[in-house]
């Protein structure tokens, strides 16, 4: 399944990454190399195989619904690139 330039642009946007125009072609070629290599998995018939999602079959435990940490607004905001009025600040999103 070879991908084209249009697909590279689409994946880049889905990844929220920019690929410069002159890098589209080399990126496509590199991806096709990798995808081509991955195609070797199709040599194996897996029609009846159950996918393995996690190696340890622990079932997630229930816990009491209570606050275990909190009231640390200042610590949480300390690493924010921009914060105002005790909130994270972002560019205007509503016109």
């Amino acid at each position: 399944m070879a991908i084209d330039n249009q697909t590279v642009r689409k994946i880049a946007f889905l990844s929220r990454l920019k690929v410069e125009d002159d890098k589209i072609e080399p990126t496509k070629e590199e991806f096709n190399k990798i995808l081509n290599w991955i195609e070797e998995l199709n040599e194996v018939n897996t029609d009846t195989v159950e996918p393995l999602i996690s190696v340890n079959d622990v079932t997630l435990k229930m816990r009491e619904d209570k606050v275990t940490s909190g009231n640390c607004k200042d610590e949480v905001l300390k690493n924010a690139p921009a914060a105002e009025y005790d909130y994270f600040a972002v560019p205007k999103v509503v016109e």
Partner: protein
Amino acid sequence: MSDITRLTVSETLKALKTKEFTSYELTEAYLRNMENARNYNTYITENAEMALQQAKESDIRYAKGENRALEGIPLGIKDLFCTKNIRTTAASHILDNFIPPYESTVTQNLLDDGAVFLGKLNLDEFAMGGSNETSYFGPVINPWSKDKPLVPGGSSGGSAAAVAAHLCAAATGTDTGGSIREPAAFCGITGIKPTYGRCSRYGIVAFASSLDQAGPIAQDVRDCAILLKSMAGFDEKDSTSCEVAVPDYESFLDGDIKGLKIGLPKEYRPDGLNPEIAAYWDKAAEYLKARGAKIKEISLPHTKYALATYYVLAPAEASSNLARYDGIRYGFRADGQHLDDLYINTRTQGFGSEVKRRIMIGTYVLSAGYYDAYFLKAQKMRRLIHDDFMNAFKECDVILTPTSPITAFPIGDESMLENPINMYLNDVFTVSVNLAGLPALSLPIGLSAGGLPYGMQLIGKPFDEGTLFNVAAKIEVDAKFERI
């Protein structure tokens, strides 16, 4: 007195207990080594002031007889573990100003046992790489380098190089596809990736959550046993950590291996296998045989597909995990007129090229229309690879293989850089273990004709790290490998 930074952790603990020197003196000595070896680029952030303070407190504890399991031992921490109030970068520009307000569980466990943190060690960006060359902070130089600078392996390259060069007594690492074992092999030291779920992943910057596991990198097998005991354990903050008792790993070192069945997978010996490593592999098997173990050939039939499976699953999980780096709540932010511009500019400038490559591959294999063909297919392959091991362990107790088909290569090696797949192929002996969630240890076995270390890998049944320590200790004695 001879150089106290050359002692192993177990030797250091004895010396601290008998007050041959203090933790403060020892920490100062390591800090001096670090200063003199800055050209290796092993540390991203040095933590001298806090380390000396911790050492002082350890000395008080020794004086009072209240010393804990790792009291006063100066460690290096891979810069993927969040450390409270110490900058944690994952070797990425996108996190290069991040100061965590919390501590990872593994590092907290080490602190609770009295460890001293010398600083944060270099790695491949977000642990994605096998040579430490993708770090935003530049490559690490392998202390075994001769005429030209060699890579230390990756991703835990700073950890392995620092341990080998005595810039810390031992270090933490993480392993998603070989990131503890390969650098340990390249730097002539020992490292173990424990069973998935053995160590908590809480507070470790996530790469591929179903594969990531923390473990120690140290000078010898005993030190790894001591460190792992401290790092491991169930943690409520990580739902994938397991409620399994952590044994005293050191107690396994003196066990005997009579009658133990050692499996050698035939698929790990392809026609083109480097004859040097093949010879060391045979030698390691002979050591074990001479001690009464039974050597038998086993088969892991889907080995050939492990790399391709890994390079679907790991990027897929990474693309999802790294979606959080958006420039809003922490880390680097680039300007953008609109929110999407801000995301795109931040991520494009903040991530390096290998990380971007993996995010995009991961996004592609998870995207509508391709999910079944790639992601689901890889999850099914993962089942087959996992079942191969489970079947093999019906016939043997431990599996012995080389860690890597090659020794450390030069920084900037053309063939590795021109095609990313060439770099990925170095993981051929290590990735299956992560896919199957098994414990595996790498220890040095001998030198190449060019004088560079080779590593041997032992793979165990789930939660059977103890047997790995037992067998590794025997190979260690017989191989008589000389560290730097």
